[in-house]
């Protein structure tokens, strides 16, 4: 234990009071250009400079204390991976001439090499990339997003992006993987985010919003979800991509009579049933599957929480549609020691990209748990805000059958299932952080950087770097380095309902169409560098923060929404 760092060796230590008491007064946003210099002023880690030997907590240099001898393929590869990662974590793997480690034994972020790698990915690609012919928009988003997080100005790519995006757009709405390819929600999501990253009216105006709205209507399914393309599969990725596109472009929510989901119900809209679809994807483990009845998987957890956070303030939408204690348990189980990184599923290996897919869930979960300012956390009549199940699901169930969800509308059924157990009490806020930030940062900087001239970031040691992992590993680093707090919007749209009472079981369950999709989206995500616990990276190894839902800088989200807000939602119809 001698080598253990402060947090690791004394996990019970009470943290000092949070440095930030009032979001409005003290929180400054770190955006674009002001970020890194400011960080220098608020972080004092001079004490660490006095240490001569790198301090690497034994948590990251030893196998976990519980061992077992019953070997199967899963355990074999797990042990092999843990041992391989330990070589990179303990700093003794010195045959890497390009790696410099700091006093915590953590390598520097090889910013310049990663930047070069990403510029290459945006340039001309050799013939071997033909298998990426249907996913070129992803390369644009991954590379531009990663460059932005690394502090690069990407406006020089604006003209190139505009012509590229135009060549991928279909007259019938949406963007395909390339010219004359079917429009797909994933590629459209990637193009829209890329245009938002380079910014500017000329870039935004590439998008034919009216055709986009029509196309999205054609994908909307009667069960609430979205097909990823006409005739394609329906899954939670589709729901997330559609929700992002609709809200960034401020498309009208109206359901067109041509939509497969159209029933003539004038209250139904493009968001109707999305939350129920998400709810059906939660599994017995607590995580989220791509479609109902499949194994919980990290990538889909992020899509699910992203969807819910778009539909309403996460402190309302997440507990209403998901079993939060089970979800948090599952998310937390994704982090392994000694590796420090996240896996995507139970009994699978750590992989750098889950730094985003799983790591990126925590700001949304924290916004869910910390939703209301402490002063009015217990105010009466705030509906489901902060309510959820506390532990012992079995005990709750045994007290009497919880909602059995046989009612006619699934919205009511699912909502009841999720909120009727409010008797278990409120869930406490997550002020101290629900995952091990130091662990994730160590995994990323020690194990996920390509250590050759090539640059770029990767899944794990032994794997090649690529644009996809570069983007999502850096997103994970960004969320580990920052702390987000979602301010409450001035007037929660649902709290004023007279039918809303403290007893969730008897209260009116708001239907999807009551949800004002805008109010909570206008709320500010306040961001600060994360200051608690040991800080194992140097100031110049900070990456920029990105919006917890949209995965691009908050300024980019605001700019594109403002642009289309000025144009007015009615314009496209």
């Amino acid at each position, binding site marked *: 234990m001698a080598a253990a760092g402060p947090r690791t060796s004394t*996990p*019970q230590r009470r943290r000092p009071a949070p440095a930030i008491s009032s979001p409005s007064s003290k929180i400054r946003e770190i955006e674009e250009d002001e970020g890194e210099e400011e960080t220098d002023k608020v972080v004092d880690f001079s004490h660490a400079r006095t240490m001569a030997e790198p301090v690497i907590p034994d948590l990251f240099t030893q196998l976990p204390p*519980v061992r*077992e001898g019953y070997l199967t*393929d*899963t355990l074999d590869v797990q042990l092999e991976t843990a041992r391989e990662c330990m070589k990179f974590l303990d700093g003794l793997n010195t045959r890497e001439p390009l790696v410099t480690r700091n006093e915590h034994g953590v390598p520097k972020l090889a910013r310049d090499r990663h930047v070069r790698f990403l510029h290459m*990915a945006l*340039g*001309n*690609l*050799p*013939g071997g990339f*033909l298998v990426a*012919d*249907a996913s070129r928009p992803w*390369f644009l988003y991954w590379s531009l997003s990663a460059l932005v997080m690394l502090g690069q100005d990407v406006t020089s*790519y604006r*003209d*190139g992006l505009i*012509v590229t995006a*135009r*060549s991928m757009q279909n007259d019938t709405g949406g963007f395909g*993987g390339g010219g*004359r*390819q*079917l429009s797909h929600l994933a590629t459209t999501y990637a193009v829209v985010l890329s245009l938002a990253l380079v910014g500017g009216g000329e870039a935004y105006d590439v998008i034919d919003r009216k055709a986009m709205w029509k196309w999205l209507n054609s994908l909307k399914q009667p069960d609430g979800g979205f097909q990823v*393309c006409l005739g394609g*599969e329906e899954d939670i990725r589709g729901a997330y991509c559609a929700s992002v596109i609709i809200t960034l472009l401020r498309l009208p929510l109206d359901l067109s009579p041509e939509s497969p989901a159209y029933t003539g119900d004038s209250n139904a809209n493009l968001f109707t049933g999305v939350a129920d679809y998400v709810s059906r994807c*939660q*599994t*017995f*483990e*607590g995580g989220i599957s791509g*479609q109902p*009845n*499949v*194994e919980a998987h990290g990538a889909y957890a992020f899509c699910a929480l992203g969807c819910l956070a778009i539909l309403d303030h996460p402190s309302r939408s997440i507990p209403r549609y998901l*079993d939060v204690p089970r979800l948090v348990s599952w998310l*937390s189980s994704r982090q392994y020691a000694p590796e420090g990184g996240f896996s995507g599923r*139970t009994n699978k290996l750590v992989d750098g990209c889950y730094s985003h897919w799983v790591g990126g869930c925590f700001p949304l979960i924290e916004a869910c748990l910390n939703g209301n300012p402490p002063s009015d956390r217990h105010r009466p009549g705030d509906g489901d805000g902060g309510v959820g199940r*506390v*532990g*012992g*699901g079995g*005990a709750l*169930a*045994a007290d009497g*059958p*919880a909602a*059995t*969800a*046989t009612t006619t509308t*699934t919205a009511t059924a*699912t909502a009841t299932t999720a909120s009727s157990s409010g008797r*278990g*009490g409120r*869930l*406490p806020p997550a002020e*101290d952080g629900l995952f*091990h930030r130091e662990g994730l940062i160590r995994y990323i900087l020690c194990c996920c950087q390509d250590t050759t001239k090539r640059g770029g970031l990767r899944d794990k040691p032994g794997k090649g770097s690529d644009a996809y992992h570069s983007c999502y590993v850096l997103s994970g680093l960004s969320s580990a380095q920052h702390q987000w707090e979602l301010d409450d919007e001035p007037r929660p749209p649902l709290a004023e309902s007279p039918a809303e009472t403290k007893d969730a079981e008897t209260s009116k369950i708001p239907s999807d169409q009551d949800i004002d999709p805008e109010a909570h989206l206008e709320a500010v995500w306040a961001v600060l560098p994360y200051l608690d616990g040991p800080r194992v990276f140097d100031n110049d190894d900070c990456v920029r923060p990105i919006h917890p839902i949209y995965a691009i800088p908050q300024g980019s989200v605001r700019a594109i929404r403002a642009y289309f807000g000025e144009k007015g939602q009615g314009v496209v119809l």
Partner: protein
Amino acid sequence: MAAELKKELYGGGVGGEDGKLSTDPEWADVEPVVLQEPEGALAAIAYPDDYAEAMAYLRAVMQAKEHSPRCLRLTEHIIEMNPAHYTVWLYRAANVFALNLPILDEITWLNEVALQNLKNYQIWHHRHLLVENYHPLIASDPAAISAFAASERAFIAQMLSEDTKNYHVWSYRSYVVSKLGLFDDADELAAIEGLIDKDVRNNSAWSHRFFLVFSNPAYATPGAAATAYDAGVPAEVVDREIEYVTGKIRLAPQNQSGWNYLRGVMVKGGRKLASVEGFVSEFVIRLGEERSEGGKEGEGEEGEGEDVLSTHALDLLAEIYAEKGEKEKADLSLRRLGQKWDRIRVGYWEWRRKCLEVGA
């Protein structure tokens, strides 16, 4: 189907003697649609000539909405070069249905492609579309259904032998069970048990078992949440599953798949978690005690004498103590997880301690 006809549809290839479509008389009537990347395009791919040519012909026939054997062969040709091209797959499906081709022939062809492209997922949606179209033809014939189920199961087994946790394969398997109604199919459950016997840590297999058992429409309440009690599930089923999973946990107590499954079963069955306290306690020895057996009192620190064979058992034990109102013991369990046995999750264990405070 005659071999000749099959060659017209499958494996016949495209292109003239030099392999080019432009010299193939069969394609002479088609004007290829060549796409020029715009000046300054980003991430532009230098397509090999044969791929670029095939795509140009594909655009032409798609634009003309042609459905024909030669189109089918063209899609096969492109899929060989780039199996990730979703537009090509959907166009292929449209050809299969427009030409009214025997679905089983297409599935046979698809099996080969799938085995060569394990990570590809377009093949699974294609298969899904084929089954959607095939099912109505056999729906009223139980023998045909079970024959088809058996052949699908054999193919899935072959895919899983290459990669036991392939997410697309397991998603497809879940779909097939629902579509063909295989919840009570003894072979399906036996196949899953076989995979769990092979690797008790295969969480995909455990997840599928949970779906098979607890989503069985014979008794499961439609729409019941996965993490909620379901009064429809018979007690014998719950007992059987507890028996099964506890046996597997004994093999590998630190295997989280087993514990997640056990907890899931208890909740579905509306059982008190405390009803398995005896079993869970087997894996947590002398929790919080200072000394091991035979040691002298007052010599060690808290927990020095304890042994934990499974962090997941200790997690569940904390819940059991909370359920019984034994808050201090619950708190101790969570503290020991954060202090020693599962330190990477200390933030979570601390949050769980706070849950104890507000939840009682």
